[in-house]
């Protein structure tokens, strides 16, 4: 915990140096968050190059605007929010495919059940949960990810996703309900399958 606080303090210091034009701090911030940003970006597009380009453009923008950047308490939050916008623009110009703003919030019915049964049934609960999470509707998955993978609070998550807090709360609630439902179905199916053997 202490270490985490220290790192955050360092990063904020780097951010302030970057605002004053320090290229080393700038590079440090990039190195520190490149993986997180790439992981987040990859959720929106399978195209590695597109995500890499978005990160690149994001940092070039940051350098260009360094004098106008404000002090921040969360550099990561700023970066995530900006990357999302950047990806939005890039995906719009380059491809028609986009998971953004797809309001389709309905689950793709549980056609995966069979698949589940056939696939390594001995998979641990954790792996199954990972699979279920990634099969959530895009916006639900994104909200869960931002809150519990990237540890943003609801307010930050809402701001990154350009929604209000209550909507994010609803999204997460829905996803949890959905997840629990799926999981129990699978567990009982599994049990059923097991028993009939």
């Amino acid at each position, binding site marked *: 915990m202490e270490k985490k606080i220290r790192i955050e303090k360092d990063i904020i210091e780097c951010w302030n140096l970057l605002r004053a034009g*320090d290229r*080393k701090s700038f590079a440090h911030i990039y190195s520190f968050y490149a993986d997180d940003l790439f992981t987040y970006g990859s959720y929106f597009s399978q195209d590695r190059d597109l995500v890499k380009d978005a990160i690149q453009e994001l940092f070039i923008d940051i350098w260009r605007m360094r004098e106008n950047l404000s002090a921040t308490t969360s550099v990561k939050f700023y970066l995530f929010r900006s990357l999302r916008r950047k990806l939005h623009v890039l995906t719009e110009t380059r491809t028609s495919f986009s998971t953004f703003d797809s309001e389709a919030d309905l689950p793709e019915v549980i056609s995966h059940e069979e698949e589940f049964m056939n696939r390594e049934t001995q998979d641990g609960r954790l792996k199954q949960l990972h699979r279920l999470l990634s099969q959530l509707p895009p916006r639900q998955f994104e909200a869960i990810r931002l809150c519990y993978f990237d540890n943003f609070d609801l307010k930050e998550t809402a701001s990154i996703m350009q929604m209000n807090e209550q909507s994010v709360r609803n999204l997460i609630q829905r996803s949890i309900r959905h997840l629990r439902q799926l999981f129990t179905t699978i567990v009982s199916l599994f049990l059923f399958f097991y028993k009939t053997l």
Partner: protein
Amino acid sequence: MDYSGFDVDDFIFDKAFTEWVRTGENDAFWQDLMQSQPLVSHKIEEAREIILAAASLPQAMLSAQEKQEILQNIHQRIEEEEVVEDQPVVLTVFRKMWWAAAAVIIVAGWLTWKGTGSHSKEVTYEKLVAAEVKSTELQESVNTAEKPLLVNLPDGSSVLLLKGGKLSFNKANFNNTRREVYLSGEAFFEVSKNPEKPFFVYANELVTKVLGTSFTIRAFNDSKNVEVVVKTGKVSVFTQRDPGKEDKMKDNKLEGLVLLPNQQIVLERSQMKLSKSGIERPELLTLPAQKLSFEFDDVPFAEVAATMERSYGVEIIFDKELLGKCRLTAYLSDEPLNDKIRMICDALSATSEVADKKIFIKANACK
């Protein structure tokens, strides 16, 4: 806090709860709660499992090489843009210099055409050289080209002379007790360190004394003001008419007006007034000191060579097959060019040879 009526999604949004799941904070309380309320305990387990699953989702990975490539692209684009932004051309050169130097002095001024004014009391390059150096012992370099001209001094110091610049020294006694050069125009100096033999630059009425550092001087015969800005390092400045000039020149200390990083003085030539003042173009000085050096962090030699070529206007010849991909880590700053080359060669176990504007680097293998 009463958790008895909590469902899974209530726990998910509870700050204390998520903190416990993530960090184990307040473990006793939660263990206790689970013990005492078995119904809630199920919800807790479920909520915990979901949070932990989300927290351990697989990551998409960038390879170290991809990461490095992106950073290089970013740096490259930034530099391209900054060079374009910098107008006029002189400033472009300056910006490049800054990458090359640990210390920068800019002696600048608005041009006022006074003619050569032979009756004035002005100290000019021509007068200085005529008074101090016999023509037979004079070694002079004049740059009439657009590109900076590299001048290597006998002590190993290097000077990049900009367009229209003239630099001369006495080849008979350059390195005796002190090192003295005369400058007209603009030049970038990288002075080899030797506190025993201070290095003097005479530019118009201004004397700049250093023991070993790098800096730029810009002084034209027809400038009204002379301006000195130090980026890093330490130099002392005084005028030719300073009554204590002889003392200040004698010893190995930096006396008189000592300039530290980010300080500026202006010499008003008509009144011979030296005054410290604010920095006129602070945006040019916001680059931090470490950015002024040649810092190569695990960079292919080909790139290092290209940087040196660009910065010094020399040509570096090497076996591209053999050395091009050698990766090099070197933190160079205000050493003269030849020292930089020597240090790079040491790192590569290579040898170098200098001929005119060409530097040959030879090595048997990439070490």
